[in-house]
């Protein structure tokens, strides 16, 4: 068996040889294993996270949550709570009834007259201490009149299903992007029509049809949501929050409380993991009325149960997939129906139904496609963005089906994939022309890693290996901007609004700027996002930060460089072409001894000028998709590709699956920092292993979540982790990316669960059409197989 030591040796060798002389850009800073700039403050525990912010005179808040899944509030009496000594204020949906949301404003702050899930917020309390607030919550009296709830997304789509949002038609939404169906529970219906799918099936030699379901899971960032907010004179809202989307939080606060954006200031604190859960305003919204009413700072820090019930969860998915295929393995038609279990608010989930829908056919060039993807309201916690944005869920079905087809056709699954993969220049399912396509290289490298050092059999257990491959979109036309200032002492401040959520973006942005200005990384300091002072960025989402904001930072640095050269030309009294630039200095051609640093060039002597570089970036030809056909010019700025291979042992007596090794190769364009990139892959293995084998939100028949704590919501521990080997494609840098880079956070999670599921099948012949692959499920399936024999 391959040992950890051997793996480390392989990794070491890779460090030396891997990134040299290939097509991906390797520079002095870009492509180098630069230590993370935020490492020191994190490992020494000095970074201030959301809950660490303390303001003088601050109140603590708690939420009163609904015990009913769908009910009218017939009586709400907060008087006893208000009378409790130490309680400062109580807020309810009667006073604060604005709606808000990301793409679709369907979300109330507190329940207005109806509760929509067990855990929905009915009131909020601010008090002098947590204990008092907690007691006050118990003193709030509520009477409910039950309404019929609906928990199953398929049931919720039926014409006679109870409606969660009868006023859907009057909500505000992003027109032309979403297509809600007022009068139903369908918050968005995305359609993609390409070619003639029936003709495709008619020409096919075989047709396969499979259905699979993936349950709701939660992001479980290590740091739970926390914010402190205070409202200053003139209703100026000032907030500190551990958020991935300070500008989106600001927008949602503005919509909910009708406050102009320039009166809301959101500071980003350290963020202890997000995975999408911290993109939009949640606790930030619930805290504001308390601050407005009390005129005192209010802290709202969530506990683990609130993470599950009152932030975001990953939507459940029920997916039907019909594929027509030729004898040689070429797919000719795919018809897909995705039903996303969106929970009570689908303000962000609608977008997952859209993009998760258009990516659901996988990284394959299929001539005829028909996709329907629905985001559906149910009386459960709200779904929303979760690392992968629909791709890992859909891949669980799609990639298992590829393996099943290959087996039936008697060809290797790797060949089946190779025959169908997209290539440079191909037209994507959505009509866009593809550039920077590395899926084949990833397949080769994953296969080699698996075959080079296969694991040995273990006594009494069955061994199997399996792969899965995905492609992942990003955003299209979103704005990114950055500003760079050179200080009097030659140090540099870099302003951009990407949240450092553990992914290493701060380091990557500084590497890019270092590369342009040829200065050491530590000469630069990044400023945490602050909506009053850092320039605009859409969100830290969609694996878009390196590409979009990285370009903005690059342009800001190039802009500063241009300004410096102009100033140096004046100072040295030479034409601009004769100014030399390098090592953080400028000098007149041929006179290196007169070199001056940036501060000297700009601020020295008698004509001080402040250098202020700025950069903005977007994709000019980005476009939406047609309502009827899902076709468009460029729905995603770029596509990322990647594959993973899993090796498992199955204990057939207990059904226990041991994930022994995971290999991963991804096409992320140029790898700006190999160490942080590998970290993304290793982290995704941990997360994907949890999703594949342990994680599932269990509800009882009344919609109550049964496992809203880590006692019974299992995440993998270090002892559950497999050996991991990682690699990257080097032949497909993106021509518009900063130094050729694309992105990688989300696709890293894309294939993990599907690869594990395929490995389990290859080990013991059990194909499960639901996640997670718990020991009990595997055991039952093995038993059923025995019976059938």
């Amino acid at each position, binding site marked *: 068996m391959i040992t950890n030591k051997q793996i480390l040796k392989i990794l070491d060798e890779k460090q030396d040889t891997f990134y040299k002389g290939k097509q991906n850009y390797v520079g002095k800073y870009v492509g180098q294993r630069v230590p993370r700039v935020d490492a020191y403050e994190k490992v020494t525990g000095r970074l201030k996270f959301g809950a660490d912010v303390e303001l003088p005179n601050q109140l603590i808040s708690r939420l009163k949550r609904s015990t009913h899944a769908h009910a009218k509030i017939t009586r709400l009496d907060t008087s*006893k709570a208000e009378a409790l000594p130490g309680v400062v204020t109580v807020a309810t949906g009667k006073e604060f009834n604005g709606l808000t949301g990301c793409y679709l404003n369907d979300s109330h702050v507190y329940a207005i007259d109806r509760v929509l899930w067990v855990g929905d917020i009915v009131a909020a309390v601010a008090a002098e201490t*947590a*204990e008092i607030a*907690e*007691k006050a*919550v*118990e*003193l709030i009296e509520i009477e409910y009149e039950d309404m019929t709830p609906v928990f199953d997304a398929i049931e919720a789509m039926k014409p006679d299903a109870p409606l969660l949002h009868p006023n859907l038609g009057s909500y505000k939404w992003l027109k032309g992007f979403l297509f809600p169906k007022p009068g139903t529970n369908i918050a968005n219906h995305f359609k993609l029509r390409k070619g003639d799918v029936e003709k495709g099936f008619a020409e096919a030699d075989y047709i396969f049809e499979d259905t699979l379901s993936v349950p709701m899971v939660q992001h479980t960032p290590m740091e739970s949501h926390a914010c402190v907010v205070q409202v200053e004179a003139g209703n100026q809202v000032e907030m500190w929050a551990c958020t991935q989307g300070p500008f989106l939080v600001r927008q949602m606060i503005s919509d909910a409380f009708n406050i102009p954006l320039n009166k809301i200031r959101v500071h980003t604190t350290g963020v202890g993991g997000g995975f999408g859960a911290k993109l939009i305003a949640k606790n930030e919204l619930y805290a504001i009325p308390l601050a407005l009413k009390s005129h005192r700072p209010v802290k709202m820090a969530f*506990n*683990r149960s609130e993470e599950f019930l009152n932030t975001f969860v990953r939507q459940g998915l029920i997916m039907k997939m019909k594929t027509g295929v030729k004898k040689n393995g070429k797919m000719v038609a795919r018809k897909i129906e995705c039903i996303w279990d969106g929970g009570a608010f689908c303000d962000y989930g609608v977008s997952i139904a859209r993009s998760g829908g258009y990516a659901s056919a996988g990284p394959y060039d299929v001539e005829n496609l028909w996709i329907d993807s629905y985001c559906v309201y149910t009386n459960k916690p709200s779904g929303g963005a979760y690392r992968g944005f629909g791709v890992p869920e859909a891949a669980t079905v799609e990639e298992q089906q590829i393996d099943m087809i290959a087996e039936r056709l008697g060809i290797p699954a790797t060949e089946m994939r190779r025959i169908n993969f997209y290539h440079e220049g191909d037209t994507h399912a959505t009509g866009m022309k593809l550039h920077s396509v590395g899926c084949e290289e990833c397949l080769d490298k994953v296969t080699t890693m698996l075959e080079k050092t296969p694991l040995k059999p273990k006594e009494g257990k069955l061994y199997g290996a399996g792969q899965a491959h995905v492609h992942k979109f990003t955003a299209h036309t979103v704005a990114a901007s950055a500003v760079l200032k050179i200080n009097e002492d030659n140090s540099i401040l870099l302003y951009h609004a990407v949240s450092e959520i553990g992914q290493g973006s701060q380091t990557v942005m500084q590497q890019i700027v270092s590369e342009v200005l040829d200065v050491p990384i530590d000469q630069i300091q990044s400023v945490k996002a602050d909506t009053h002072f850092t320039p605009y960025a859409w969100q830290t989402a969609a694996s878009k930060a390196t590409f979009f904001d990285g370009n903005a930072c690059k342009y800001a640095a190039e802009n500063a460089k241009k300004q410096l050269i102009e100033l140096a030309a004046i100072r040295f009294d030479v034409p601009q072409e004769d100014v030399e630039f390098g090592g953080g200095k400028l000098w007149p051609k041929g006179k290196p001894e007169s070199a001056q640093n940036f501060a000297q060039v700009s601020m020295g002597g008698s004509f001080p000028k402040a250098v202020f570089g700025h950069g903005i970036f977007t994709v000019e030809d980005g476009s939406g998709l047609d309502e009827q056909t899902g076709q468009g010019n460029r729905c995603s700025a770029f596509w990322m590709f990647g594959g993973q291979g899993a090796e498992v042992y199955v204990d057939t*007596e*207990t059904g*226990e699956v041991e994930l022994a090794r995971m290999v991963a190769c991804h096409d992320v364009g140029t790898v700006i920092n190999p160490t942080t990139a590998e970290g993304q892959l290793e982290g995704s293995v941990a997360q994907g292993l949890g999703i594949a*084998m*342990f994680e599932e939100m*269990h509800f009882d028949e009344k919609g109550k979540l*049964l*496992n809203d*704590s880590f*006692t*019974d919501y*299992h995440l*993998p*521990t*270090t*002892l*559950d982790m497999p050996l991991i080997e990682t690699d990257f494609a080097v032949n497909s840098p993106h021509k518009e990316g900063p130094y050729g880079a694309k992105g990688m956070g989300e696709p890293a999670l894309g294939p993990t669960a599907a690869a594990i599921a395929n490995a389990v099948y290859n080990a013991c012949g059990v194909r499960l059409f639901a996640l997670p692959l*718990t*020991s*009990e499920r595997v*055991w*039952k399936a093995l038993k059923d197989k025995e019976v059938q024999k």
Partner: protein
Amino acid sequence: MNKLSEFDYYEPATLAEAYDLLEKFGTEAKVLAGGTDMLVMNKKSAFAKVEKSDCNVHNRLIADTCATTTEVKRVYDLKNVINLKKIKPILNEIAVKGDKLTIGALATMTQINLNESVKKHFPALAAAAGRMGSPLVRNIATMGGNVANSSPAGETLFVLLALEAKVLVGGKAGNRTIDINDFFVHVGKNSLKPGEIILAFELESTGSCNAYKRFSPRHSMDLVVVGVCANLWMDGKVCKKANIGLGAVAITPIHAVSAEKYLVGKELTDDVIKEAAKLAAGDAKPISDIRASAEYRTHLVEVLTKRTIKEALA
């Protein structure tokens, strides 16, 4: 999770002082060992309304004016916490005297896991102590706390059952010994009397061989879904006596009685072990919950019993 309740905290230096405090505070006292159950339960505890009838002696005479007030309290509250760890002589010693092994109630899981005598004579207990929770938990969690907490899934409980432990308890009225078979009463309930604490556990090494196995989805930080301990007295290949302790399959840890009976007097061939495992599965009375269905738990008892017996014999 909330902050801990506000409580009064005591550090008695002697057992006598501890007993006095326990008597004084009665039901409003709790003894503290590692705190890994107690403090977590308190922090996690929900608040709930309690209707309190304010009828003191004075206004009980005019019962009609008896005022009911609503108080909000934690369901698992702490009022007076009595730390046992400062008592001298310290209650965490593991001592061997002849065939008798005494394990102090405050011995931590790590201590038990690393102790040479425990490892030699009771590998099942050493293994259980080395498996529960995580290293951090094991470094402070005590066996006394594990047993006093009396969860049917308690890591060491079904092991102590199979190892025929005696529980030495003390209180104001003196010390007594409770047979482990008589100790557990229901989920979270045991036969300790008010004011009594566990002082130590006594085990006798009588040449048996033993092993422990448990099933849980994760490899650490996970509660027992099914636990099995086999303790066998062998005469060559023939089994003279057998104890099979089962955890998390009934309201208390239990013996697999029919399996135990069946094994006695038999040569432990593969077939015999298989049959015993089947019988053990029949002895289990598990429930279905989100951790596992009753059917799966029953099946696991069978697989684990078979494997545990084999390991004990190896």
